[in-house]
């Protein structure tokens, strides 16, 4: 039995956890109380993250589609993928990364796309745009006197939720905006504004709230309906010298954003519709865009598990989980944290960067 420090891969907060391994297998997690972000506290997703490693559907070797998906080897699958990539024009090729990829993987993927001349590249970012304004940090949450929240942060990002609770205990006023009739975050707030849409809030109520904002306020944006809305929240913050933290979903959403273009669901759809070959690294796109993906001629996927996207694919490369490789994640407050390899990838799986390099090598692209 061995405990090793790592970063939780389940959301963008970047909590520390201890991974328990036994005979080179992940068996559990243990509180990491020395870690400043979460002090040993973690949510269910965090405690159970080791399940990603031991997941029954882990891919152990490459697969290719014959009539159905069948096991293959690296040579055959790489050759097939490469010959297909070569057979399309760069304009017909779409490349999609993920907020779950490390910064280093995003970089390599981008380089690969550039060398190939493929301009259609991005990663699914929900409704969050790229932004470069300065964001608050976790202590700012705790020390704020007024916090405006969109979404159910307590439930979805509990370790920021904790900082909201600490702020509340220090006397902060909390206002939350969301769609359902009641939410846990709404319940602990001084005021809960149920709204039809974020737009409606911005149009009807934002002005009133603006008067409450000052330099000891903070805006936490975890829910948006539309990319443009973030800028409006940013304006609210800028006008009042408040701090702002957009809360994106994945453990490296913020890092990926700095490297790859963030794409909303609609943008993804539009892009995919124009493509004949799609190369997806690390994202289970089919879970939201299954129908759109079916129209693509040829689908190449790198995935840790036999997920819906893998099942739709023509070539599937088995990839490594976060503790099976070395790299870094950038959390919501812009903190870049290293993750070290703790375990070897299972079976023939390799880390995403290595797989991208292998493809590049066969294509005689120098990365």
């Amino acid at each position: 039995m061995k405990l090793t420090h790592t970063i939780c891969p389940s959301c963008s907060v970047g909590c520390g956890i201890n991974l328990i391994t036994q005979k080179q297998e992940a068996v559990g997690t243990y509180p990491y109380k020395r870690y400043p972000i979460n002090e040993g506290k973690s949510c269910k997703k965090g405690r159970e993250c080791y399940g990603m490693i031991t997941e029954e559907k882990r891919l152990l070797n490459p697969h290719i589609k014959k009539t159905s998906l069948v096991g293959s080897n690296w040579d055959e699958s790489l050759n097939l993928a490469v010959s297909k990539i070569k057979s399309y024009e760069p304009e017909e090729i779409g490349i999609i990364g993920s907020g779950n990829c490390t910064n280093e993987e995003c970089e390599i993927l981008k380089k690969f796309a550039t060398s190939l001349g493929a301009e259609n590249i991005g990663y699914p970012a929900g409704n969050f745009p790229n932004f470069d304004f300065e964001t608050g940090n976790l202590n700012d949450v705790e020390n704020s006197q007024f916090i405006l929240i969109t979404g159910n942060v307590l439930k979805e990002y509990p370790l920021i939720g904790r900082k909201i609770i600490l702020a509340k205990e220090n006397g902060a006023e909390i206002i939350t905006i969301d769609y359902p009739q009641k939410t846990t975050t709404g319940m602990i707030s001084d005021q809960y504004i149920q709204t039809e849409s974020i737009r409606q809030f911005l149009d009807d109520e934002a002005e009133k709230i603006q008067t409450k904002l000052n330099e000891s306020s903070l805006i936490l944006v975890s829910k948006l309906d539309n990319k443009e809305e973030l800028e409006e929240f940013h304006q609210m913050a800028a006008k009042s010298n408040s701090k702002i933290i957009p809360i994106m979903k994945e453990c490296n959403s913020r890092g990926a954003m700095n490297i790859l273009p963030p794409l909303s669901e609609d943008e993804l759809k539009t892009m995919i519709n124009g493509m004949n070959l799609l190369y997806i690294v690390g994202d289970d796109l089919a879970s939201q865009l299954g129908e759109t993906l079916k129209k693509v001629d040829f689908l190449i996927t790198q995935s840790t598990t036999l997920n819906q996207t893998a099942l739709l694919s023509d070539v599937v490369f088995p990839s490594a989980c976060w503790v099976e490789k070395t790299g870094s994640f950038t959390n919501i407050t812009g903190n870049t944290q290293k993750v070290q390899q703790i375990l070897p990838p299972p079976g023939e799986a390799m880390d995403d960067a290595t797989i991208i390099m292998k493809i590049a090598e066969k294509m005689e692209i120098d990365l």
Partner: protein
Amino acid sequence: MDSNYLLARAKDEDLLKKGECGGAVSSIFQYLLDSNLVDGVLNLSHGEDIYDGVPTLIEDSKDLVQTCGSLHCAPTMFGDLIRKYLQDMNLAVAVKPCDAMAIKELEKRHQIDSDKIYKVGLNCGGTVLPITALKMIELFYEVDPDDVVKEEIDKGKFIIELADGSHKSIEIDELEEKGYGRRVNCQRCELMIPRNADIACGNWGAEPGWTFIEIVTEKGREIVENAHKNGYLEVKTPPEKLVNIREKIEGVMIKMARKFQDKYLEEEYPSLENWDEYWNRCIECYACRDVCPLCYCRECDLEREYYSDSGETAPDPLTFQGVRLSHMSFSCVNCGQCEDVCPMEIPVARIYHRMQKKYREQTGFIAGMSEELPPLFSPEKE
């Protein structure tokens, strides 16, 4: 070795040097590993610094130097780790009283095999959460926590030692009044000398460079005697004066703990309105249950649909903590883990400790100490 009290120290020079007191604990582990009486030793090694205690399984006695010394800012729990991952091993483990209490309850429930485990107890005056320690050292000691090479709790003070050998100390009381210092459950903890382990080791009553050992069980006597006979341990009889001093300190500490119990479980106990506020923020993450050494069910009642509420708001406390309380609070050992890990800062351990106290008053059952299971489990007609 007729007496149950003795002073001991390591024969091994490294262990003597690196050990907290006399390195006796590490020497006993060394003896147990070398003579193949155990397959492994579970204790703590330093992670990134002295505030980072990482549970570590040592299988080669040469590695024991890395785990020497006491980490007062490492509130870990071993009960769960042993039950889940180390059941098949013959094991020796360094236990704080709360570890020993949890293990005891698990032994009674056949979750840990008492024949396979040596419990080497460490006296404990309380632990500090690592981040609390960092903040406190910056704030009150005005020292960069990275410059601290050693920390210690002695004579009611939290003492830090700097690289140049100098010390700084502040009264624990003062720190605790300001919300720092030991975890609140530790403040309430009245088991300082783990007489539920095989031996209890500490610095109380010890001469400098020696570890004071109280032998509790026959198994405990055997390992100390044999470690001595086999040349791992040097032992001598403590002067009676020191034995008395130790007893006195223990008495004072217990009294203080009871005062804290009154404070936290009665006088300053959260009102029902406060509890409602707490329960309203519960995100049903089960961290409190998962970390609790007493909650080990494969299929937990709390996750049954029968009790569940709609997901968007907090679960009804009656059928959430209420159900968990009804399952195990009578056996709560006040280890504080549930409260440590709750992401919503709910003082969970307080209600559990309070219920165990009520239960103790009614039945005499002391969680983690009594030899029997709580009477709730008894088939007796009484």
